[in-house]
């Protein structure tokens, strides 16, 4: 470690103003602060600096994502061999999925960080750390056999149109990873959902749909609740195992990185509306399989849990005030279930619900703050 520190200190002057590589300053800065705690000092205003800077915060989210990623790799292999009717060892399952998933992760990080570095150089600011998380989230919300060029195009779209146009990390209105998914969802719908997504490569293998896709086509639900909870179902890479997502949620809440208010309120909102639909289903729409679904199924199916824990809590795009977070979370849960049940065109409502509420988060905050000001104004004694 000391050697590395010395090496960086040695080459540092060349990257500073007037140095030989001064045009690469932001690139250098990115690597230095990634390897070591930054030694920046505050010039103005508050002089207390927490060393937990954004890179560290982001690393915690990446750590929280690793269990779902590893399980996702294993599950890709498991589903593949299951559909071919073969039973293989844990290691073989994992290896198959690893080979499938790793290129997606590499492409996502490569393209995204490449664009981040280019923008940082052109605009002369630090490289934005935000992509450390987005680069991991993008592969996790995609189906495992998505073509790599689509991953590259979607990542580029998410970083440029979703983020850099608005001024980079911290300025974006929409969650970049969901922007990537939404882009693919609308641009190449056949590759993103439906029964074609899960075809294994071999001709004799069965094609399978995700449980949400099955419901849409009015087929009975064949997977058990426990399978859905533990994650032995087809689906996007990172979303299947509700258990591991909850584990990640626990980690995020304990470290203070994720907001428990948002996570709890998303689940509460989704459960509430799903329960309401479940109660009225026999009277209003007996043939809507979605509506008749027991409410807890909604929470463990599809991307609901994943969205609630990793996407809705994105500190940049979520509501900032505490009361705003409750409203924001509940509305996400409600919208997600609403879209699932009532809109037959979209089997999964979580992505659209979060993106919609991302747009409304500043408005929610605005009214929470206004409301607070009004309440406190009333406390001022009226001058006689």
């Amino acid at each position, binding site marked *: 470690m000391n050697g590395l520190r010395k090496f960086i200190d040695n080459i540092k002057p060349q990257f500073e103003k007037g140095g030989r590589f001064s045009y690469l300053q932001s690139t250098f800065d990115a690597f230095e602060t990634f390897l070591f705690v930054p030694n920046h000092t505050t010039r103005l205003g508050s002089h207390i600096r927490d060393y937990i800077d954004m890179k560290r915060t982001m690393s915690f989210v990446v750590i929280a994502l690793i269990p779902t990623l590893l399980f996702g790799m294993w599950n890709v292999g498991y589903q593949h061999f299951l559909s071919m009717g073969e039973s293989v060892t844990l290691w073989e399952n994992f290896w198959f999925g690893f080979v499938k998933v790793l290129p997606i992760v590499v492409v996502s990080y490569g393209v995204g960080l490449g664009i981040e570095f280019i923008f940082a150089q052109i605009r002369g600011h630090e490289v934005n750390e935000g992509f450390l998380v987005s680069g991991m989230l993008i592969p996790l919300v995609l189906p495992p056999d998505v073509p790599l060029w*689509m991953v590259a195009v979607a990542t580029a779209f998410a970083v440029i*149109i979703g983020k850099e*146009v608005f001024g980079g990390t911290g300025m974006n209105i929409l969650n970049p990873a969901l922007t990537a998914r939404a882009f693919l969802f*609308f641009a*190449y*719908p056949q590759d993103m959902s439906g029964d074609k997504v899960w075809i294994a490569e071999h001709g004799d293998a069965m094609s399978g749909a995700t449980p949400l896709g099955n419901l849409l086509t009015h087929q009975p639900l064949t997977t058990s609740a426990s399978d859905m909870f533990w994650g032995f179902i087809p689906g996007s890479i990172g979303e299947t195992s509700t258990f591991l997502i909850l584990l990640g949620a626990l980690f995020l809440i304990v470290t203070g990185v994720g907001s428990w208010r948002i996570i709890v309120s998303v689940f509460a909102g989704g459960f509430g509306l799903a329960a309401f639909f479940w109660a009225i289903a026999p009277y209003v729409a007996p043939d809507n399989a979605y509506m008749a679904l027991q409410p807890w199924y909604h929470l463990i199916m599809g991307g609901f849990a994943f969205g609630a824990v990793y996407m809705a809590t994105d500190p940049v795009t979520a509501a900032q005030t505490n009361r705003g977070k409750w409203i924001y979370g509940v509305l996400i849960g409600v919208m997600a279930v609403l879209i699932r049940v009532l809109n037959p065109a979209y089997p999964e409502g979580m992505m659209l619900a979060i993106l919609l509420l991302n747009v409304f988060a500043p408005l929610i905050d605005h009214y929470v703050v206004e409301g607070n000001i009004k309440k406190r104004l009333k406390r001022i004694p009226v001058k006689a």
Partner: protein
Amino acid sequence: MNNRESLFSAKNRRLLTTPLGKENPITIQVLGICSALAVTVKLEPAFVMTISVIAVLAVGNMIISLLRRTIAPRIRIIVQLVVIASLVILVDQVLKAFVYDVSKQLSVFVGLIITNCIIMGRFEAFAMSNKPWPSFLDGVGNATGYGIILIIVAFFRELLGSGSVWGYQIAPQFLYDWGYKDNGLMILPPGALIVIGIIIWVQRSRDKELIEEN
């Protein structure tokens, strides 16, 4: 009259050119967005739409300018609407007679030129207080500025969304064999919004004067 302006004096030329860039109706004034979303899926209808708007706006501007002293201010909107509506009906009939297929593709959007804010905007802002010839030039300039954006947007939407330009297949077959697919987002209206947004972004980063102070 010696001090009479020549037909293409510097001032008149500016009427033609500023709407193409600095005062572009779509990217700067953000007018006429609705039809820019609706008719830009393919290049051909966008082109026909451009020609129609140029015709309506140029002739309409001139007519309003000729009438400007006789129109009572209270009823000027109605008079303007009558002029636009008559011109739009003329254009619609011509399209139906000569390019029936395109006319069917454009469907209601030819009729909706009546509600295109650019046209009313130019009548009010320019033709009501200027002479016929400058009004004519102003109409051609603004409609062309609108049309240029329409054609750029349609070019990218058709290229990326259908792999073709003006109906001719551009994306080669081997690309599709390798797994390339046309981008469905570009065919949906949000595709047009995204392309217009990118044009605005490029224009503003090239011309710093356009960036608003805040």
